[in-house]
């Protein structure tokens, strides 16, 4: 049976994340972007909403079961508040969820509790690579077997909080198949580059990671000797990024709609001009349609069905939506949209980055 309404539990979670998004994230976003850092207390508060903790069963230190659908509902709200901070709050999920989904029982028992117990800590994943045709299913970073260990070589980018990471999950191609490895941040051969600078995401510290002969034991590979199917992980990170993007688009849409009703030109609110009103109608429709694509991909994940194609559609659709909506939001504000006092230019900068964000968060 079809259903398009979150259940009561999900509604409660969405409510609390939305309150945090509006009262805390939105309020802090401008200054954080200018200063280039997120107040630690802000991230801590987001962490305490317990979105990840509620996805990890008690046996591994959490208090619930994973639901990708619930995850995307929460992620949308975080993106609605501030995508940059949302990525920071969700960074540990990109480390923990793969372990939960693909790890051996031993890996789950030993690796998950330190992540979910206590405060937010920079457990992060290294996924994206700095080549223009980066493909999650065909990575340049390699892993090779050697004397019962794995040796990793390659370069990663967009690794959040890499400089003080508590734990790292590194993706590499093993015999041509993408696999994830738990890599201690202080490993020999692991070089953490200077902080990166991007068009957006100003408040989130990210770094390049260079792996030169980094050797990890056999049990560092998720799933142990047998390894794991990377596809559900790739799908889960694509839908997470897509959900954040939908939240960002919704923020830009709402902001520009309110502005258009308020701003008077030639004696009438600009929203009374069809050329602008129709833009808003298309923005609203696009957000609604692509959101359902994201939900469907997440639902497929929860059902244990093949979500690869749906998740790819979700992230491509959401990237386009984020760009289209934020561009129009700037346009609706006119010259004022170009000024950093208004958040729409920031949303536009962050929105353009969405295709690069899978790997940084997961549901």
């Amino acid at each position, binding site marked *: *049976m*079809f*259903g*398009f*309404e*979150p*259940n009561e539990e*999900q509604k409660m979670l969405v409510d609390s994340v939305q309150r945090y998004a509006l009262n805390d994230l939105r309020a802090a976003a401008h200054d954080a972007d200018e200063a280039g850092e997120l107040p630690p207390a802000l991230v801590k508060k987001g962490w305490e909403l317990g979105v990840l903790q509620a996805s990890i069963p008690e046996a591994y230190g959490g208090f619930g079961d994973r639901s990708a*659908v619930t995850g995307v509902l929460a992620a949308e709200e975080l993106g609605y508040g501030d995508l940059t901070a949302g990525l920071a709050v969700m960074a540990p999920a990109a480390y923990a969820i793969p372990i939960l989904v693909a790890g051996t029982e031993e890996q789950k028992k030993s690796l998950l509790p330190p992540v979910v117990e206590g405060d937010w800590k920079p457990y992060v994943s290294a996924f994206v690579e700095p080549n*223009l*045709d*980066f*493909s*999650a*299913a*065909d990575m340049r970073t390699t892993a090779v077997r050697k004397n019962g260990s794995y040796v990793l070589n390659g370069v990663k980018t967009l690794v959040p909080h890499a400089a003080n990471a508590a734990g790292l999950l590194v993706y590499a191609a093993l015999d041509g198949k993408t696999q994830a490895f738990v890599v201690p941040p202080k490993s020999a051969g692991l070089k953490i580059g200077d902080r990166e600078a991007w068009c957006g995401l100003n408040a989130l510290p990210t770094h390049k990671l260079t792996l030169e002969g980094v050797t990890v034991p056999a049990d560092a590979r998720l799933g142990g000797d047998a390894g794991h199917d990377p596809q559900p992980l790739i799908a889960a990170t694509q839908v997470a990024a897509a959900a954040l993007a939908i939240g960002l688009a919704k923020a830009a849409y709402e902001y520009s*709609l309110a502005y*258009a*009703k308020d701003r008077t030109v030639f004696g009438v*609110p600009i*929203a*009374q001009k*069809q050329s602008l*009103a*129709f833009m*808003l*109608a*298309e923005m*609203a*429709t*696009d957000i*609604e*349609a*692509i959101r*359902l*694509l994201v*939900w*469907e991909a997440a*639902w*497929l994940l929860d059902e244990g069905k093949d979500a*690869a*194609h*749906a998740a*790819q*559609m979700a992230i*491509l*659709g959401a990237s*386009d939506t984020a760009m289209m909506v934020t561009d129009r939001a700037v346009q609706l504000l006119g010259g004022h949209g170009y000024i950093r006092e208004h958040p729409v230019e920031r949303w536009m900068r962050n929105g353009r980055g969405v*295709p690069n964000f899978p790997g940084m968060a997961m549901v």
Partner: protein
Amino acid sequence: MISFEIPDKVRNAVTLMTMVGENMMRPVARYFDDHEHEVPWDYINMMHDANKQMGGGGFVPSTDKPKKAEGEAPKKEGPRVAYQRLAYSAEALSWGDAALYLCSPVGLLGAAAVAATGTPEQKQRFLARFAGDKPVLDGMALTEPHAGSAMPADVRTTAVRDGDSGVLNGEKIFVTGAHKALIDTQGFLVIWATIDASAGRAGVRPFVVEAGTPGCTVTKLEHKLGIRASDTGSVVLQDCRIPFDNILGSPEVEKKTTEGFKGAMATFDASRPMVAASAMGIARATLETLKELLAQNGVTLRTGIPRSRMTNIEREVADMEIQLRSTWLLILKSVWMMDEKKPNNLEASMGKMRAGDVVVRITQKAVELLGPLGYSREHLIEKWFRDAKVNDLYEGTGQINRLIIARRILGYGRRELA
């Protein structure tokens, strides 16, 4: 609950309609495109029999059908999926052929208007005939020569009370199925007319004009870009006298209320998702055939690669898939809302607007990508490109649906945004 599990009842309908599409529609689609105004009796008779075999319920959801006779056991309460099934059926049949779908004798736009505005007795009387011995078609006439988008506010066809009858005068144009409803079968049209032209939308009411009613003539059949199997007729009403109880809804017809206008709007909330679903059927047929023709011509489409590695054709196809699926989900949500009895005016217009855009874009692109194969009448792609465009025109143009959406989201009325 958020779920994308297709209910069994809906799945079964899709299987059946797909068989019809494949076996009864695709093979004759080109023929009826070439023979405009020839009536596709085989299809009509087959659908009529099938409809009767399925209990004669036709396409009007059971929730809107007349109540069961007293004493009959009430049906078990399952999830309501009638509109979902209807949307899936419209999609699957239009995947077969959108023009033939519009010739289905199962109750389409006229029936939707009856279901949305009629009294229980009227629903019984008019909807039962779809399960009769012979097939009947229906239609809905709002558009007039001077105005389409401005309807129903600018209706000039008049209705005057004369004792036990209503007398209609005026001209309707672009009436889908007019000839099949009034001449080829013993069907009916729902005609929107005004009881007080000076009252604007407040004067508008829906009237049922049955086949054979004196004073009602089909005066013209249009020659069209596409959907040629579906006739589009002009209807002239000249002192056309109908029984008083053919006036749909509230008997207090003479009161100036916005009841009639609201009825037109309620009809659209139910019918726009069906038009959108029909558009999606054309779009899906086009996308599938595009992929088949590409494969036959040695063009392989890789999946699971990032955009930066895609060829132009791979990227176009990937974008089409995104547009198709996301729009379908939007339409599905709008009919799910109907089934759940939630107001769906905004979502119905969103789905319709987007479906119109998407089907036009997908079919235009498919013709382009396939070069001479796309442009040739040897394949149906060029036909679907012609069929597609009407979905951006009828049941509210793309602009009118944008207007509706914009008013909703801005909290504006007609005065603020015209």
